[in-house]
C-alpha cells in the first residue's frame, strides 16, 4: 500500500500542476501601467512555489515507495549529512528564495502604494455603501464640495450628502453610478466608506483596496486599454455583498469628454 500511496501522490501532484502550466484559468489580461510588475512577480513566485511543491511531493513519494513495509531484517539507515545538511540547505535555498521574492516584490508594491500620484492625475471620489459604489467628479472648478453625512439621503438622490445651496464647490460636482475614466490618464481615486467596510477590486486593472469607515484612503492607477470592466466588492459587507458591483468604463479622451458633458447635463 506504500507504493500505491507514492503513485497517488505523484498523480495528484502532476494533475494539480497541469492547469497552472496550461494556463487553463488565468487572471484576465492586464490593462494597467503597473500590472505587468504584479504579473511578473506572480509568474516568478509560481515557478518557485511550483518547483518546491513538485520536489517535496516527489521526494515524499519516492521515500515512501522505497522504504515502506520493509521486513524486520532490512537494515535501518540514516540520511547521510543528517539534519544539519537539511537545515543548511533550507536556510540557503529557501532563504535566498524568500529574500529574492521579498526584495523584488517591493518594486511592484511600491509602484502602486509608495509613489504619490502625479500632479496632473485626474481626481475622482469613490464612495462605497451597502450595496453600491458611487463616484463623484469635481466639475469645472476642480474642487469637491464638503460632505455632510447627515444629509445623505438615497430617497432624494443626495448620495454624497452635498449641500449645493451653501457650498459653492458642490454646485458643479458630478455624481455617477459608474466610473468612467479616460484611457492612458492617471486617475487618483479618493475612497471613503459610507457605512461599513467594502473593497474596490478590478481584476484587469490589478488593483484592490479596502474602503475603511472613518479613514480616507487613496489609490492611483492608469488604464491602458479602452473597455468596460467590472468593479466588485471583496470585503464582506452584508447580505447584498455578492451583488455589490459597478462598472469601470475606460474611454478615449474624446468619448470621455462627451460622457462627462452628458453626465453634467443630467445633474
Amino acid at each position, binding site marked *: 500500500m506504500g507504493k500505491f500511496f507514492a503513485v497517488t501522490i505523484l498523480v495528484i501532484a502532476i494533475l494539480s500542476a497541469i492547469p497552472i502550466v496550461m494556463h487553463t484559468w488565468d487572471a484576465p489580461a492586464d490593462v494597467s501601467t503597473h500590472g505587468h510588475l504584479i504579473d511578473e512577480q506572480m509568474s516568478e513566485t509560481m515557478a518557485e512555489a511550483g518547483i518546491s511543491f513538485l520536489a517535496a511531493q516527489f521526494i515524499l513519494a519516492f521515500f515512501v515507495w522505497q522504504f515502506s513495509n520493509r521486513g524486520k531484517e532490512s537494515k535501518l539507515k540514516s540520511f547521510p549529512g543528517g539534519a544539519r545538511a537539511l537545515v543548511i540547505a533550507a536556510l540557503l535555498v529557501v532563504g535566498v528564495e524568500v529574500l529574492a521574492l521579498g526584495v523584488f516584490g517591493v518594486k511592484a508594491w511600491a509602484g502602486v502604494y509608495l509613489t504619490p500620484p502625479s500632479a496632473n492625475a485626474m481626481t475622482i471620489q469613490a464612495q462605497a455603501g451597502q450595496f453600491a459604489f458611487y463616484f463623484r467628479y469635481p466639475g469645472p472648478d476642480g474642487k469637491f464640495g464638503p460632505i455632510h453625512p447627515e444629509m445623505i439621503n438615497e430617497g432624494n438622490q443626495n448620495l454624497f450628502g452635498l449641500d449645493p445651496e451653501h457650498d459653492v464647490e458642490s454646485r458643479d460636482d458630478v455624481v455617477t453610478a459608474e466610473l468612467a475614466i479616460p484611457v492612458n490618464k492617471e486617475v487618483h481615486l479618493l475612497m471613503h466608506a459610507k457605512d461599513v*467596510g467594502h473593497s474596490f477590486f478590478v481584476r484587469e486593472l490589478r488593483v484592490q483596496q479596502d474602503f475603511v469607515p472613518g479613514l480616507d484612503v487613496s489609490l492611483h492607477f492608469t488604464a491602458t486599454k479602452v473597455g468596460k470592466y467590472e468593479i466588485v466588492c471583496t470585503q464582506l459587507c452584508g447580505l447584498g455583498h455578492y451583488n455589490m458591483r459597478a462598472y469601470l468604463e475606460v474611454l478615449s479622451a474624446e468619448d470621455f469628454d462627451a460622457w462627462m458633458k452628458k453626465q453634467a447635463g443630467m445633474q
Partner: protein
Amino acid sequence: MHDTSAHAVQHQAPTSFIRKHVFSLDHKVIGKQYYGLALAAALIGMALSWLMRIHLGWNNAAIPGLQVLSPNGAPGGVMTPEYYLQLMTMHGTIMVFFVLTTAPFAAFGNFFLPIQVGAEDMPFPRFNMMSFWVTFTAFLVLVSSFVLSDGPTLGGWTQYAPLNSIGSAGGPGQGLGVVLWMTSIALFCIGQLLGSLNFISTTLDLRVKGMSLMRLPLSAWAWFITSCMGLTAFSVLMPACILVILDHVAGTSFFVPSGLVLNDQLIPHSGGSTLLWQHLFWFFGHPEVYIAIVPGIGIVSHILIANMRKPMLSQRVLIYCMGALAVLSYMVYGHHMFVSGMNPISSLAFSFPTLVITIPATITVLVWVFSLYGSRLRINAASLFALGFISMFVSGGVSGFFLAQPSIDIMLHATYFVVGHFHLVMGVAAMFGIFAGTYFWFPKMSGRMMNETLGKVHFWMSFVGAYCIFMPFHYLGIAGNVRRYATFVDDYLQPLIPVHRFITIAALFTGAAQLVFVYNLIHSRFWGKPAPDNPWEATSMEWSTATPPPWDNFGGKHPVVYHDPYQYGVESSVGDYVMQASPEQVKTDHEEK
C-alpha cells in the same frame, strides 16, 4: 528534572457517575469530553459546508428540510444570500474554534500530556474541568443563535468592524446574533486560557524523575508550545470581544467611527477605529492558525517515528522549528491586512517575517521527509494520515509564498486562492493530524482497536477527495473568483461555475468518507478487538501503562524515565525498541543526553 515528591495527588478516585463521567476532574475524561465536543462540532460544520457547496453549485436548488431549520433563511428550501453568509460564518467559527483548536490541542493534549510526562493528572484539575464546561457552554451559546428570528451573525468568522458593532441595522443577525457570537468566543477564550495554564504547569512542574525537557516526546513539546501561544493569543481576543459587546449594549464606540450612515440615518457613534479590531483580531488570528497546526506537527512526528521504527533526524531541530513558528506567528499577522488601508510601509514590514516563516516550515518538512530515508515504514491508517498530513502541509504551505507578498496579494486577497490555502494548510492538514492521532491513540483511550480496513478506506476517500476540493480553489482564486459570495452574478465569474459544481460533488464525496470514520469510531468503541497495552510497539510513557489507563495513570506507581522518547532501531529484550520507562540498557547511537 523533577523528583516524584513534587507531585501532589490532586483528587481521589471518583465514585459517583457524575464525578466519573460528567463533572470529572480526570484529565483523561476531560480529554474525551473535548474529543466528543470536537466530533459533534465537526459534523455540524461539515453539514453546513455541504449546504453551502450545494448552493454554490446550484443556486436555485431547494434543499429538502432546510426551510424547517430556517423558514426565513430558506423559504421553500432555497437559501437566501444572507442565510448563505450566516451558514458560512457558523461553519468557519465552529471549525476554527470548536474543532481545530479543541481536538488536536485540548482533546489529545488533555488526555496524553500528563501521561507523557509521567504525571497523575494536571496540577489544577478543577480549572481543567471548568475549561471544558466553559468551552461547552460557549458552543451552546454559539449554536443557540440559529434559533434567533433573524438567524446567526453573517459577518464571517473574522467579524470585521464596524459591521460587527452597528447592530441589526447592518443586516440579519448583526444584533443579538453578534452579541451571542462574541459571548461565545469570549467564553471559549476563558476555557482555553484555563487549559493553557494547566498545560504549561504540567509540562514545567509535573515531569517525572528522569524526564528532562529534551526527553519529552514531540507531541508533548507541541502541546506545550501551543499552550504558550494560547495564553498570549486568547488573552487578546477575549477583551476585543468584550469591547464589541459593550459597543452593542453599553453605547460605547470602540470600533465605530463617526459619520457613518445606514438607511439614511447617521449612526450615533463616534471616536472608534475599525482597523483596531483588525489588529486585535489578527494578533490572535494568525497565532490561532499555528495553535491549530502545531499540535498536528507534534502528533504526526510522534506517530511517524513509531511507524518508521527510527527517530527523526533531529528531535531538537523539530522542537526549535515549532518554537520559531510560534514566535514568528505574532510578527506576521499584518499580512491579513495588506490592502486594509494600513500604512503601505507596514505591509512590507509584515511581509518579510511572513516570508521568513517558510524557513522553519521548510526545515520541518525536510526533516520529516528525509527521516523516512532508510526507515522500515509501517503502513497503517495512522501512518497514512500522518503521511497525508505532510503532503497537505506542503500543498497548503507553498501558496503561502504568494500571500506573503503584498504586491501579489493585490490580486489574490479575498479570493478563493486564500480559501484553498488555509483550508489545505490549517483545515485539511490539521484534520489529518486529528485522524492520525485518533487511529494511533484510540486503543489507549478506549481499550479497543479501530478497524484498520475501514480506516484505510477513510484515508483514501479523504485524501483524494480533499485534493479534488481544495486544489481547484487555488485555480478559481488565480482567475479572480471572490470569496464570500452567495451567488456568482458577476459576468466574469459565470464561466467558473462548472468548477464550483465539480468542487461541490467532491465535497459531498469527501463528507461521505467522514461517515465511514464516525461508524468506525462508534463500532470500534463497543465492539472493537480489545487493545493490548502497547499495540504499536511504541516507546513513550502512554504505552507503559495499562490500556485504558487507570484513573491515576500509573496505578499508584511513580514511573522513572531512563531514555530518550524515541529509542527505536535498537536491540532489546522486547524487540527493536526500548521504552522510556524501561531501565534496560541498550546499545544506541542516538541518545540525545
